[in-house]
């Protein structure tokens, strides 16, 4: 049997900062966020579930390309429906401002319901509302046809959806305890599900998290998809260069100075 060999080389230093983005010090910061995300998933997995039944799966997603792909999917979905448009476009900005996204999904809500006859899905005294709208034989739901004109292929077992809520709640409780910023989003959940994250789930919620001086998920301004930190920085790059061009001088020979006495500007000496 292979024995655990303890690494006793305990020395080093880690410089951590949120600036510049994607610098080594910023990536170290993001790795801290990733550790928090893993602990949040621990909390999600141990949330109270109806009957103690396992039904939650998680996907942790990070990296510049990966988050950009999620953001673009959220933007694509935003334009599919007027009621989503503005909020979802704002939330795509939040994806780009996040360090990590956790997707949490329920693997049973569309296929293996609680079967307790609670009536929460359709307001009836049995599970008929769910089963009558599914392709099924003797209560075994056939999910092999995954095409759907709807964003979410309902009806779902509402008790299982409730379980997903408990999982998301526990993840967020862990985030609050760890003092990292996190919020739950439908837009990111729908995008993640369409991208294949939480592949066995009938419903997915996205929980982005960030370890930054400013919580990315609150205090947004109007037209946030047009006016946000990325855009502000890009506009600075756009404006500042031109501002330099229109007033050039050879700094080796002459630098303008504030006027202190009579005489030509910059000629005080």
């Amino acid at each position: 049997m292979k024995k655990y060999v303890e690494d006793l080389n305990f020395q080093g230093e880690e410089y951590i900062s949120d600036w510049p983005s994607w610098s080594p010090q910023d990536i170290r910061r993001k790795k801290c966020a990733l550790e928090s995300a893993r602990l949040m998933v621990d909390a999600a997995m141990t949330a109270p579930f109806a009957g103690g039944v396992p039904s939650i799966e998680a996907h942790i997603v990070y990296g510049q390309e990966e988050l950009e792909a999620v953001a673009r999917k959220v933007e694509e979905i935003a334009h599919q429906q007027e009621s989503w448009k503005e909020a979802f476009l704002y939330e795509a900005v939040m994806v780009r401002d996040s360090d990590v996204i956790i997707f949490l999904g329920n693997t049973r809500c569309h296929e293996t319901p609680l079967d307790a006859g609670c009536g929460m899905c359709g307001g009836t005294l049995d599970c008929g509302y769910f089963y009558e709208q599914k392709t099924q034989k003797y209560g075994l739901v056939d999910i092999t046809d995954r095409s759907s004109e709807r964003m979410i292929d309902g009806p779902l077992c509402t008790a299982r959806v409730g379980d997903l809520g408990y999982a998301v709640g526990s993840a967020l409780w862990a985030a609050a305890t760890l003092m990292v910023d996190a919020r739950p989003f439908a837009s990111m959940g729908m995008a993640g599900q369409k991208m294949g994250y939480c592949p066995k789930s009938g419903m997915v919620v996205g929980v982005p998290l960030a370890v930054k001086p400013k919580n990315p998920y609150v205090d947004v301004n109007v037209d946030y998809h047009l006016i946000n930190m990325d855009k502000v920085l890009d506009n600075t790059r756009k404006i500042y260069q031109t501002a330099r061009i229109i007033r050039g001088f050879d700094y080796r020979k002459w630098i303008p100075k504030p006027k202190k006495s009579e005489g030509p500007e910059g000629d005080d000496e």
Partner: protein
Amino acid sequence: MGHLIGKEYYLDHVIEVAKSIVLAIHKAPQITGKTKIEAEIIWGEDLEPIIEVMGPVAKVMRYIQWDYETIKKCYEKGESPVIINIGAKVSKSNLNWNCGACGHDTCKEFNAYSKEYKGGGQMGGPSCNWKVLDWAMACDWACASAWQYRVDNRIMGSVGFALHALGFLPDMDANIGLVLGPPRDMVYYNREEMHKSMSYEMDKQDMVNCVPTMFTAFPGGGTPMYKTKDDWWAPPEFMGIGYSEEAMEMYQQLLFEEVPEIVVKHADKIEARYKDKKK
């Protein structure tokens, strides 16, 4: 100056903790930001109608029996649990997301359906799934908060059924009960209150009923024997599946006679409480 000792102040303090938990319920994050959630704290004599409604249901539902007897026994020996009723308005969508999760193409269609069938299920329903997610997050924050205070607790659909039937939080259309205390370890998990209430034979028969695969003999013949005793082959036993008139009658009697009778007995007093609060 002061001195606290003994159990007398426990209940008062669990009620104080319950108040803090209610703050966590209202602080819980929401996805929609549009789900109305309310909570109330119930203890002492006000538990009696809840216990009474759970009584007949306990006769046909083992999990309700466990919750019912635990709460009842604690209450009867002077260790009243404290119940937080967490209610939400989930049967109408004001989102216009048209996501399809409820089984309808649009929120408008769902609302029309819901208007007709509202409250028809044992736990209410129909429900907008996004609103149920918001509600569930609030319930989870209640549980997490209770654990943070190290108060034994369990979130119970059984209590939710009783609260819903009795008309607690009448403006809400979904209810669930978070049961807190008495301050001991594992009141609602290992369930000391339930010790010696179940024989070995009952326990074993439950397992045969609920997990028959564990007891199935060679299935190659198509009608397998079931290993329900040590010498299971002599004589062998077989599983029977069929409609049970007796079980269904009991279920119908419970839902349409016994529970409504108890509800009627307490309804006016409970209703009046909310009317008085609105004044």
